């Protein structure tokens, strides 16, 4: 029985192990001869004689790969260290400025010693030094974060860039205020929907059949008693088919 092949991200590692960026995705692949199965420590994942697994390096650790049969086992270790040199040099967008509906925006990230980061506005983790997006939100600030740090302390670095459309249907403003008055609760809601194109807006609470608001912007106050959980919903659908995505699913719990 022997471990024929053991790689991280397609590379064989020597005794020095693998130096990862904080949070890096590590794709482990293996091939063993004459074994019944294998276990990958520290997390105890089980696998067959040949396979792959994925994990994220948020702290230094040693991957211990153990292949076994009914009688014995063989093992290999891969120390995973964190580089601590991760650096975010800059973020840019192309084309610069406001884009039109359906136009693709390319975010480019200046990265050193890391190869991923996080973009907000629902984009999430981005692998690599660029990301192509059809932007749905109004022209606004996009935040990009990377993780950094070594054995001592994990941290993050953040930079921003402006991108987006100027014609996107969007919930531009939503403010909510709750004031308690004995058993009663006084609610105040302010909203503004951008680029609605005259489409009707409907704002409801799940315990009432009546709308509490219907304009593209406004302010509404109401009073209620009791602590039941209710759902607030905001809906708007343009004739073009563009929909306020969050309109019907804004689960603002009113307690």
């Amino acid at each position: 029985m022997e471990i024929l092949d053991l790689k991280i991200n397609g590379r064989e590692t020597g005794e020095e192990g693998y130096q990862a960026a904080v949070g890096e995705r590590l794709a482990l692949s293996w091939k063993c001869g004459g074994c019944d199965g294998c276990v990958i420590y520290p997390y105890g994942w089980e696998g067959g004689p040949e396979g792959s697994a994925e994990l994220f390096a948020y702290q230094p650790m040693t991957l211990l790969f153990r292949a076994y049969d009914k009688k014995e086992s063989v093992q290999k270790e891969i120390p995973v260290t964190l580089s601590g040199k991760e650096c975010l040099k800059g973020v840019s967008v192309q084309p610069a400025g406001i884009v039109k509906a359906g136009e693709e925006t390319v975010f480019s990230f200046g990265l050193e010693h890391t190869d991923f980061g996080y973009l907000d506005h629902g984009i999430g983790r981005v692998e690599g030094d660029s990301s192509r997006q059809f932007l749905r939100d109004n022209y606004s600030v996009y935040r990009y974060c990377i993780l950094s740090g070594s054995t001592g302390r994990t941290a993050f670095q953040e930079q921003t860039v402006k991108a987006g459309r100027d014609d996107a249907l969007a919930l531009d403003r939503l403010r909510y205020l709750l004031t308690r008055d004995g058993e009663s609760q006084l609610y105040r809601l302010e909203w503004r929907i951008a680029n609605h194109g005259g489409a009707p807006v409907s704002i409801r609470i799940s315990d009432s059949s009546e709308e509490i608001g219907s304009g593209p912007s406004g302010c509404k106050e109401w009073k209620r008693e009791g602590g039941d959980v209710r759902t607030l919903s905001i809906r708007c659908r343009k004739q073009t088919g563009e929909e306020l995505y969050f309109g019907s699913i804004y689960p603002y719990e009113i307690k």
Partner: protein
Amino acid sequence: MEEQIFSFFIEKGELLLSENPESPIQNTLKMWIEAKESGGWDLDEIVYRFPKGAGPEDFAKESEIRNMKCHISEGWTLNIVSRQQLEKLKKEKKRGRGQERVCFLCISQDEKEYRYTFFAQAGWYFEKNPVFELELYDVMTTAEEGCAQVPCELFYDEEKCGFHTYEILKRRKGTVTIYDFYPDRGAVAAGERVFLNWKAENAEELTLYADGEGSKLDTASHGCFVSPAKSTRYRLEAKNGENTSRRETLVQVLPAFLKKFWINEEEGTVEWEVLCAGRVTIDGMDVSPKNSRSLDAFSCPGKITLTAGGMGREIVSVLYYGTEEERTDIVHFRKTVTDFGDAGFQLLHVEWKKYQVARENGVKTFRIVYQDRERNELSVIGGMDSLPDEGSWEQILTGTARGRAGELILMTMQVCVYQGTGSQDYEITI
């Protein structure tokens, strides 16, 4: 062959090799046969076949096998007979029903093997205690190290009624080997107990070292508990005379890690496993780090919340448990927030798996919306109008108050049905 009515046993099953025929090592082998049920007489012949030769799969050389001796079950008389005599005895077979405890042994051979044929004219009475015992002594072998297979066949009226192959290990005196050494879990919380397993053979002395300090172990033991306060490399050392065998393994003390938290629909349970956690709760109740619980214990539809922490990490994971109707759409929907403590950020991880309804009937679309209630941010994750059947999404939370991400960051799965289908849209928020 039908299910065997006999069980076969061997004591130790090992031969020490003789390096020097002038000072041979005399081994003893004890093998016995038991009946699974008491009562009956349907066994009259037992044949052992010893492969002869000097190879790793051979039992011993011909001259060595010829010199070995044997005892059989106490109370029985053993008579050595020739092959011709045995054939004659078989023809004169009588059924004494155990009154006559006489057994005949015929030793024969061909090119490959030595055969020991035991024959009892009156048969052997079945009992759960050994029906037949064979002790071979003065067994000397100079064959190579390895494993010899000795077939044992049972007959009644010359029809086979049982079969087994004894595996007999041959090794040099003084050989010591640790075949395996591993922990039940490779990562634990500081001070948490973990079991170290080992398989050591022929050790006269067994020592476990941790951080340079050794503690003697019972050589017959197969494991022990340890409770490392920090990541610790353990070394197991087995000695036999001048020979030593060593193996190492590692138990790491790491931040808490959520390995498993999901619904097992078939079993009707929620299952979880958290590694390296000092404390784990399910809906506020302390639980063990690895366990499962019946779904009947939870309200439906509902959210099951798991919390865990250890070594600077705090984990809050919410698993949605839907109604029966929803469960035909969604296998699982889970939100996990990991707080990296003083690092000043949290990681939000969302996982989903849905049945392939969208493709099958084309009437439903699924999407997940991220909502930051503090910043009034709302986004469809990944910009997708319909989710893939299975996936995950991750975001860093840098401005969210520690300990409040669970209530401030909401994930909503929206299931949209086209009009006219008679079904209604619904949303699941965790």
